[in-house]
């Protein structure tokens, strides 16, 4: 199968993720969309690895997964902290860093 299809699929998933990060207000969904973007990247990495027949891309995909897990831990931690402090679960309300 031609690599183009994989890359097109990867681009679609990435675009969906971007659209979600930019447009959604629920931080949980934003996190999910971030995961989508990371996994789109993973897909592209694995596809290239297979095309070149080397394992470097796969190793990178594994590292990205580790990073994604870390990021989820921190992100969810922030969301739980927001919840505990009875803050609105809405990232547009969290704009105190306005200049």
């Amino acid at each position, binding site marked *: 199968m031609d690599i183009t299809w994989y890359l097109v699929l990867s681009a679609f998933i990435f675009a969906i993720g971007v659209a979600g*990060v*930019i447009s959604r207000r629920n931080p949980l969904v934003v996190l999910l969309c971030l995961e989508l973007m990371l996994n789109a990247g993973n897909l592209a990495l694995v596809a290239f690895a297979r095309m070149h027949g080397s394992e470097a891309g796969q190793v990178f995909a594994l590292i990205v997964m580790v990073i994604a897990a870390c990021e989820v831990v921190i992100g969810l931690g922030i969301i739980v902290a927001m919840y505990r402090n009875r803050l609105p679960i809405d*990232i547009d309300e969290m*704009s*105190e*860093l306005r*200049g």
Partner: protein
Amino acid sequence: MSATTFGWLVLAFPLAGTVINSLGWRVLPGRLPGWIASSAIFLAFLSSIGALIKLQDHPAEERHLVDSLWTYASTADFHVDLAILIDPLSVFMCLVVSGVSFLIHVYSVAYMTSDRGYSRYFAYLNYFVFSMLLLVLAANFVILIIGWAFVGAASYLLISFWYRRTTAVEAGIKAFVINVIGDVGLVIGAFLILDKTGSLDFLQVFSQVDQTFTRNDGTLVAACLLLLVGAFAKSAQLPLHTWLPDAMEGPTPVSALIHAATMVTAGVYLIARMFPLFEQAPAAADVGAIIGCATLLFAGTVALVVTDLKRVIAYSTISQIGYMVMGVSAAAYSAGLFHLMTHAFFKALLFMGAGSVIGAMAGIQDMDRMGGFRRAMPFTFVTFTIGALALAGFPFTSGWFSKDEIIGSLLNRGGLYAVLGVLGYVGAFMTAVYAFRMVFRVFQGEQAPEARELEGGHMAHGDPVNPMTGEPEDTDVGFPGPEHHIAERDWPMKAAMGPLALLAIVGGYIAIPGVDNVLEKFLEPTFADSRFADTHPSTGAEWIGLVIGGVISITGIGLAWWVYIREPGTAARLRERFPRAHNFLSHKWYFDELYDAVFVRPATTIGAFCRRVVEADFVQGTIVGGATGIVRVGTSFARSIQTGYLRAYALLLLLGVAGLTLYFLLNSS
């Protein structure tokens, strides 16, 4: 130990005294700071004697010892050491400075007893002596300038010692500003010499003066005139003298130490030290001699009418330094330095006596209020009279020998100098009159109420007021305590005045014409290269001069006696007869008013203008306002980007990455 080791010790002891007194002001009890300071100076005096003895071991041609502690600055072909020069001149100055300073320290131990700044006072005093010794021991211009600036700073600190007195603070500022004018002159003069000779070491500069400069070379004359500016500012010569009378705001021992015996003679020392330069630039030396003569006449006339006791002595100091400047400028080096030494003795003595009287008057310095202290303070009366006799040049006192040695040398050189010498006799006549004007007005005549009280054993206790303005004073800080008034009742004061009175009489016997001239022989190695080393007035001429001087002195004293004792109303009648002349003199020739109009008021006007227009409109408005405006516009743009919305940041990030990616894609194809 070698002579230079003693030289370093001379510097080390006063410095140690300063450090101990300034760090230990909280813990040192009672009079201990005073005794620490006095013993530090006494050790410095002993070290000076050590240096003298060791120096005399060397053959006469080799009595220029330079010793360097470390390199102060070193660049390409320019090299300055922290070095001292031990030669007869510097050892002589060390002996005079440390010896007189020691006695004044002892006097201060008693005089300042009740002062709240006792330890601070002695720290300053030791610092001053250290600076003065550094000045006279310096082996190059840099160290000289450092010592020069240090004594200026010490003088400022001590004049403003009672810092709650506005008049004292103003006097300190005035002294400092005028001294800085002199410092600038000295520094620029040193630059000119460095530029032409390539060296700042005294001995090296002196050795190549004759090859580098032709006689009266323009640059050398300019450099010498600039050095003279420094000397005139420090020694209170015309037209930079106005600070010295105001400096009398400081405690009286300070006036005795700094403003009579030591610091103000630094200018005389400078001219004597720089003699090879001045001999190669006789035009500048003539300027020095003429200004010295003008100053001695001017200050003499003012001292005749001023009624503030300390200011009379201050003007007398200006006048006597005029003699010294005239002497050393006219190549009569040992005569000028001889007068420097005897003047240090009798003028310090006069100030101490004045301090004693002012103490008895509870701080009042006006001679119009004084009178009849003879029986109340017999010791002060005797010593003060001895000081006045020496000042007046009464026969067989020290001043008689030293003053006439200067005048004799001037007459011997002839021409212009002879005219200056004759004018010196005129000044000597005025000196005798004003010296005994003080004695007769303070100690003779009708008794002041304070004198009567003191005779009954009571000390006058005035209210704490400023003697100059009559303002009430804050006695908590920066002011002598209420028990400040001491009139010769404490033994250290007598212990200091006694030896000085003795020296004021016998100090002149080291140089009696025709008998011996110890001082000149001692100083000879320093001035051996002088062109005028062999021109001495004959012994006969000197004795004729001495007789003339003695007659003038006795006539002057007689006139003072006539005016103030025989016909007591004469002074008042003269004042009424010549109101203009009296006004002119009692306003000190309007120098202060002139400087106020020419320098001070324009400066304050310019200052006010700058504050109002330049500072407000230009600096604050244009420069500061413009800079803040630019920053404010920039930040308001940067702030508008910071919306605080996460998605906006994400979008910007994405657009940035997309833009970069596009850029590289387009470039790579």
